C-alpha cells in the first residue's frame, strides 16, 4: 500500500427539498442502496461496490446544495497531523465527534477559501458489497436503476477557487492532474487527485461561494452510461447534457438533475493518474472541447446552473 495521507473521497452530504422524493430517486433510479437514517432524519446511502456503510448523506432543507464533502485518510494519526497543518495554514478547524454521522469515526472539519466545508475521517463501519471476500461473485443480483458502482467525486464552484486548490495541494497533498486557464493565464478550474484517478475533486472559479456543480457516480462502461440515459428518459429525469465525452479527464459522461435540482453525473473511462505524470493544461480558446469534446462549444446550462 503506497497511498499515504488522504485516501479517497468518502462522502458528500447534500441538501434536498423533499426527502421522500429524493430517496426514491437515489434508490430506485440512481441505484444507490439506503443503509441508514439518523434521529435528525438524514438518510445514508452507498453504491453497491462500496464497502463502507455510506457515501451519500441526504438532509431535507429549504434550499438544495452541498453541506460538506468528506475524505477518508489512511490512518487515525493522519487526523492529528492534518488538523495541525490545517490550523497552521489558517483554516478554521472543528472536531466532529464519532457517531455524529452514524457509524462514522471522529471527523476533522475545516472551511476553505471557496466557501466549502470539507472533512477528514479515518474510520467508517464496514458494511461490504454483499459478495464477501472469499471466492466472490462479480456483482450482486437485484440492483436497481442505473446501478452505480460508487460515489466518485464532486465538482464545486466558488469564489477564490484557487485558494482551495492551493489548500488541497499544499496541505492535503493532492496532485493537480488538469487545469483550465483563463485569458489572463490563471487557473480558472482545477482537477485534483489524491489517488490514481484522474480526479477526486474539481474546483471552478465562480462569483458565489460554496456552490455545488455536481456529485458524480462511477459506472464501468459506455454501454452502462447509455443505459443510465435510457432510465432518465423512462422516468422523465431532467437531463443536462449527454451522453458524450469530456476532453478533460477523457470521461464518458451524462449529466442530469435530482428532483431538488442538484446536478448528478454518471461516467466511466477516465485515465489512470500516477504521480510522475505532468498536469494537462486546457487553454481558454479550447474550453468548449475541454468540457464537451464532441459539441466543442460552451454550454451555458452546464457552466451556469448550480445549487
Amino acid at each position, binding site marked *: 500500500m503506497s497511498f499515504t495521507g488522504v485516501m479517497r473521497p468518502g462522502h458528500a452530504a447534500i441538501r434536498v427539498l423533499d426527502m421522500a422524493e429524493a430517496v426514491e430517486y437515489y434508490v430506485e433510479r440512481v441505484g444507490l442502496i439506503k443503509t441508514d437514517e439518523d434521529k435528525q432524519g438524514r438518510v445514508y446511502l452507498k453504491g453497491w461496490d462500496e464497502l463502507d456503510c455510506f457515501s451519500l448523506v441526504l438532509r431535507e432543507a429549504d434550499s*438544495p446544495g452541498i453541506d460538506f464533502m468528506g475524505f477518508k485518510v489512511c490512518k487515525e494519526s493522519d487526523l492529528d497531523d492534518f488538523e495541525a497543518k490545517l490550523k497552521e495554514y489558517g483554516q478554521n478547524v472543528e472536531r466532529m465527534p464519532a457517531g455524529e454521522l452514524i457509524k462514522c469515526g471522529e471527523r476533522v472539519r475545516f472551511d476553505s477559501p471557496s466557501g466549502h466545508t470539507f472533512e477528514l475521517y479515518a474510520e467508517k463501519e464496514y458494511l461490504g458489497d454483499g459478495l464477501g471476500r472469499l471466492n466472490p461473485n462479480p456483482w450482486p443480483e437485484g440492483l436497481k436503476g442505473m446501478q452505480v458502482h460508487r460515489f466518485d467525486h464532486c465538482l464545486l464552484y466558488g469564489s477564490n477557487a484557487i485558494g482551495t486548490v492551493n489548500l488541497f495541494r499544499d496541505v492535503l497533498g493532492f496532485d493537480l492532474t488538469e487545469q483550465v486557464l483563463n485569458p489572463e493565464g490563471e487557473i*480558472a478550474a482545477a482537477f485534483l487527485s489524491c489517488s490514481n484517478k484522474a480526479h477526486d475533486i474539481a474546483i471552478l472559479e465562480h462569483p458565489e461561494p460554496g456552490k455545488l456543480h455536481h456529485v458524480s457516480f462511477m459506472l464501468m462502461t459506455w454501454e452502462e452510461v447509455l443505459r443510465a440515459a435510457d432510465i432518465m428518459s423512462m422516468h422523465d429525469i431532467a437531463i443536462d447534457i449527454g451522453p458524450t465525452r469530456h476532453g478533460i479527464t477523457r470521461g464518458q459522461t451524462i449529466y442530469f438533475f435530482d428532483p431538488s435540482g442538484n446536478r448528478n453525473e454518471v461516467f466511466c473511462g477516465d485515465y489512470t493518474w500516477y504521480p510522475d505524470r505532468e498536469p494537462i493544461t486546457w487553454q481558454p480558446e479550447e474550453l468548449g472541447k475541454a468540457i464537451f469534446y464532441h459539441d466543442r462549444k460552451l454550454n451555458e446550462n452546464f457552466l451556469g446552473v448550480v445549487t
Partner: protein
Amino acid sequence: MYQISIEDSDEVFDCAADRNVLKAMEKLGRSGIPIGCRGGGCGVCRVQVLGKGQYHTGKMSREQVPADDEKKGICLACKLIPESNLRLKVLGKWQKHFSDNRVSENQKLGT
C-alpha cells in the same frame, strides 16, 4: 388548458392544469424562460406572475425565492402550476461565470 404569455415578448403557449409552466414550454419546443435544473433549485427560471393570475407552486429553493419575493408573485417556472391564464415576467438571469467573454467567441468558432 391555460394560456401562458411572456411579458415583453411574443411568446404565448398553452399549459395543462397539472403541468408546470417550464415543462409545458419545453414540450412545445417554445422558449422565453431560461431553463436550468428543472427541480426548483438553481433559480435560472425565476419569473414573476403579473396581474391577478391564479396558480400554486411546488417546493422551491428559499435561497432563490425568499418569502418576501414569493408574496410578490415571484416563483420558479419549473414549480409553477397555473390555475388560470398567466402573464409572466422573466427575472432569471444567467450567473456571471468566468468564461462569459468566451461564450460568444467560442460560439462563433462553433458555427
